[in-house]
């Protein structure tokens, strides 16, 4: 686990995107990710919603971490997460109904995200506000990045379109937008991500 006193905020932010990427490295929250990444638009909106909730939950947990009794921390984390999800969805439904009509479905799914609970437990409950913000932002951006890549790949290969616009006139591999194809896509991209990451590390180590 990263030590907050020695690592800079920038490193914390990058940690969530590369070293501890929720999907490609930690393999958390795969189920909801596979469910929504069969087109690019869904992937991006889901990623943005998670980014926001992760950021706010990390801040809240970090602020109240000293008054939480360790034995009941999980029910309180769940309260904070579901509270933020509910508030976000109600405020959006009231003020931006057009946007809510498109993303409301995803926002409510976030309650069940293991990755958000994991960050609250592993990081925010042990760190002060600023590092928690950096961590939440990094984890959220990393998640958004992963969902964007996966949904880009799946929509293009599965439906031949991007953001609902037809690119090629056929559906090359329909299985890619079905749940089973989601596992294939995540597996292939996870392998690619780790391959690039390890090559980059080898390169960095040998040039030193």
């Amino acid at each position, binding site marked *: 686990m990263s030590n907050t006193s020695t690592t800079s905020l920038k490193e914390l932010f990058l940690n969530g995107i590369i070293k501890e990427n929720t999907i490609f490295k930690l393999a958390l929250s795969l189920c909801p990710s596979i*469910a*929504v*990444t*069969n*087109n690019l638009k*869904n992937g991006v909106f889901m990623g943005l919603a998670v980014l926001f909730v992760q950021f706010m939950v990390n801040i809240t947990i970090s602020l109240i971490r000293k*008054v*939480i*009794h360790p*034995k*009941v921390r999980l*029910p*309180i984390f769940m*309260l*904070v997460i579901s*509270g933020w999800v*509910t*508030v976000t969805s*109600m*405020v959006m*439904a*009231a*003020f931006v*109904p057009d946007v809510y009509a498109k993303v409301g*479905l*995803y926002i409510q799914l976030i309650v069940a995200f293991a990755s958000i609970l994991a960050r609250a437990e592993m990081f925010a409950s042990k760190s002060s506000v600023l590092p928690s913000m950096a961590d939440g932002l990094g984890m959220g951006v990393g998640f958004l990045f992963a969902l964007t890549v996966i949904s880009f790949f799946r929509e293009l290969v599965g439906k031949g379109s991007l953001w609902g616009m037809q690119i090629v006139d056929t*559906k090359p591999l*329909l299985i890619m*937008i*079905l749940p089973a194809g989601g596992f294939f896509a995540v597996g292939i991209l996870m392998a690619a991500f780790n391959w690039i990451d390890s090559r980059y590390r080898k390169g960095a180590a040998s040039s030193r």
Partner: protein
Amino acid sequence: MTGRDILKITVTLVVFYVIGGFILAFVYAKASPMIYRNNEEAEKRALKGLMPQAEDISKLGDWSIHDKHAKYFIAKKGGETVGYIIQSFGKGYSSYINTFIAVDKDFKVQKINILSHGETPGLGDEIEADSFRNQFRDKDLEHLKVLKTETKEYIQAISGATISSRAVTEDAVKNGVAFLIKTVKEGGGGDVKHEHN
């Protein structure tokens, strides 16, 4: 664990949940009237969009399908009836699909609109796409049938979402149109309770 610990834990939990409850109640109290208004406006816009040629759309009555409450409307232009709009529900793959159907005075479907649903994102939610919904234009009761093959005469299923396509076509739309024919045409209008099997 001592009695003091148990007390402390209980108090922390209660305090947090009461605060959380108050925050939620406060946000809900502020947001719910706005959400209600938004929904009402969305319904009005949806009705107008379904039958742009109508000057006046007014509620005709209530009916129920899948134990859900739904409404139907009459659309008039210059005192003449130009068609009807009916709300209906279809039992889909993972949700009830809330549908509005506009028919002309001969009970041929003009347009359908999916108001809300909880079908699988990326597959079932294609029932909202124009390419699917436009197939319903000028279909009468006999032609509201889903085929998996290419068809112009009937409704072509969305690949990967046959259950959702069926739910809209053979459940929501078909039952809605059948109800309208039964009550408005043969029953002369009025609040007849629809028995759905």
